[in-house]
């Protein structure tokens, strides 16, 4: 029934998904006026590409997937290591990553107050001072490792604590309840 000349589009799609393409220094990124970036790859210019981290927690600057900007979001290619790109390209990509990922890193805990099932944090992050609230009954605190935490607040903002052991004794005591 099916003739092999017109290979089914789904089969083709499934086949295409398996391709491993690497994006290197040779491929050209450029800024758009609107604050996004375009990529020229294999002679084709893709507009407003998506920049996606494959290992956001374990290796945030390696394996960056560049994808087309449509509903299917097909992959154009993967950047293996951001450090191997030139400075200009890297800063362009970093700008995009900043737009796509917002996870302030907590540097100092001023205060944690718990009241009727909610805990209120007042912290200093790498993005500035901030206050947020978490629900103590839900799994607001996720352990990435023994000393690394992700805290999700009521609005589903994410905050990271890189190393619990780097906090002062006093701060750790405040945080004790969540460890």
């Amino acid at each position, binding site marked *: *029934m*099916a003739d092999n000349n017109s290979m*089914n*589009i*789904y*089969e083709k799609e499934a086949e295409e998904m398996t391709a491993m393409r690497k994006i290197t220094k040779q491929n050209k990124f450029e800024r*758009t*006026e*609107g*604050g*996004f970036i375009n990529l020229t790859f294999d002679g084709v210019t893709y507009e*407003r590409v998506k920049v996606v981290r494959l290992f*956001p927690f374990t290796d945030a600057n390696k394996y960056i997937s560049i994808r087309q900007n449509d509903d299917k979001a097909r992959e154009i290619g993967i950047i293996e290591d951001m450090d191997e790109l030139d400075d200009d390209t890297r800063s362009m990509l970093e700008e995009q990553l*900043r*737009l*796509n*990922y*917002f*996870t*302030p890193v907590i540097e100092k805990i001023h205060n944690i107050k*718990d*009241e*009727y099932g*909610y805990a*209120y944090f007042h912290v200093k*992050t790498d*993005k*500035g*001072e*901030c*206050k947020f*609230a978490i*629900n*103590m009954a839900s799994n607001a605190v996720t352990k990435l490792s023994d000393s690394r935490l992700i805290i999700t607040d*009521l*609005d*589903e*903002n*994410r905050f990271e604590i890189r190393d619990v052991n780097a906090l002062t004794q006093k701060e750790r005591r405040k945080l*004790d*309840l*969540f460890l």
Partner: protein
Amino acid sequence: MILYYDIPHKLTETVPLSDNERIYYAVPYDIDREGNWVKGAYLLVTTTKIHIYDGEKITDTIEIKRCQKAKAEAKVGGGILVVTIDGLEHVLVHYSAKHLSRYAYIARGINILISGRFEEVESSEYEKTCPKCARAIPGTKNCPKCSKEGGFLKDFTNMAKPYKKDFFGIFILMVLAAVTTLLNPEIQKHLINDVLKGNGGMKQALIFIMLMFSLSVGIVIVNILKSNASTRLGAKISADLRYKLFKKYQELPLAFINDRRPGELLNRITQDTTYIREFMEDVFCNLFAVLFIFIWDVLFMMILNIKLALLTFIFVPIVVVMILAFRRTVSRIFHLQWRKNDDVSSDLQDVISGMRVVKTYGREEAESERFKVLSAEFSETQRRNETFWAIFNPIISFLMGMGAVIVVYFGGLDVFGDKMSAGELYQFITYTLLLFQYINWMSWLPRELSLLTSSLERINDILSQEINTPDEDTLVDLEIKGEIRFDHATFGYKSYQPVLEDINAVIKPGEMIGIVGASGTGKSTLINLLMGLYEIDDGHLLIDNIDLRNISRKSYHSQLGVVLQETFLFNGTIIDNIRFSKPDATYDEIVYAAKMANAHDFICQTPDGYNTYVGEKGYSLSGGERQRIAIARAILTNPRLLILDEATASLDTESEFMIQKALERLTDGKTTFAIAHRLSTLKKANRIMVIDGHNIAEIGTHEELLSRQGIYYNLHQAQIG
């Protein structure tokens, strides 16, 4: 959700507004260009412009007439507002997750202005934290803390009003309890002063002892009566509330239910009403008695010996502070234990339900080791907590005892100095002990009241929802012939996210329509609309040329048959489940329906025939068997309109064949909509409807669609070719 914030004066002054121009939306954005937190920055949308204000000045102004489209894109931990200006996409602002859904509404609002209309978008979603006091809002519209002054009292009296009599009875009992409790030390004083130290004889002593005995008995009886009455009242109130909530849930539109997590709604029925009962039992029944006793206790102490009383009162705040500090620590460590316990049990559940995978990959050792560590941690926390717990209560008793020691010392001096009698000192000590006991009790009050307030808020949040029930008189009872017409029908679960846009189709009576399309394109949504579970936002859905909105629900649903992919059987017998659609069906009708559904034979194989108990804890039926019961249920009402949602998707070939046959009997001559992934199950369909991109992409007979070489053709090739 607030879409128009109070903006600072400085900003109001700097925004240039021409005539006929006004501010539509003013919302904060909280991340600046460098990706840092920013405060006091706003995005303003007026009738013709979008302004961006960075906290000091307006940094950017965009004419809406130059824009084509606005889109709020959700990112990790935040989002960006993207506006297409002169054909090019621009990032306008970056915001944290706090404003994610807020900007979805703003984007919709901008799009409406772009299209030349001037409607204003409103959001019925609730804020998660209070904009005033930054406290978490427990899933209600207003912050329980600062919404309305005295709101709690109003809520409570509203709830209590129907039970006036019971409350009055409890109140009387409370006063009685207080009086008897306070009287006892007075009699003891007389016993010591007049009898033991005075010259009373055995006879007098016996009278006092009898008095004390009867008072003690009185206290016990009054307390039993009081607790009984409170428990009964608590149970009554919570049962009534549960019923009211459940009834309300049935009446509320599905859209409201879908906006909330199922667990949350369940909790309101089970936990919140339970909490109100517990409050009535444990707290309320003592509330006034304690306050009453407390006040008199303090007064009596001051009358007896003002110096000693003041000395004791100095001690009170110290004890209160220590009790609170201790309790804090206790609740912290128990929270910790609870978390660890949670870790252990979820890990256990994980490994046990994944046992086959663990075994096949030979990971038993590693998993055991991991569990051992968790378990050890848990037992360590538990051990520490129990130790702490063991010393907690004695310490509290000790603290309260300390007050008595001071009283004994200074009071003793007074007795030696003849300023006080021994009986009075004894009475005073008893009052002191009562005082500390009630202070301990009252220190729990703020917490209990706050929990009660949250529960009441959550319950009232549901009960006060207004439902627009259509006027019964305008609704018609309709004998459905089966012509269905979609006329520019548009619908989305969230106002800013249409799932189906501008659907147009006419289905003839008795036609069978197959619906295909990738998941998430709106197939099930279309069916939900047909089932009358949601109302369409725009356009019409006409049944025999009458708008579905104008047909009485009862008459419509009695002529509708539904077989879904996963059949839900209620707890009950097979007969209960078949009869669900028509409670007055006779045995004859039921057996006939079961035979038509190819269900009769397997029902005969079950131990208790049609009386076999099925459901969550009952006899387990296979997917195919459940399906056939659902078909029997549908056949029983002889519906005019049938909806099959993947009815044969998860079945083996044999049962699929049986069900296919049963379905053919069921659908014969009736207007039918059938969703299917496997196109082979749609062989009997008169026409196929392909849903793609929020719309009907293709519609026609199997042959027509094949020759068109479109989506259907590709699907067909992929499955059959």
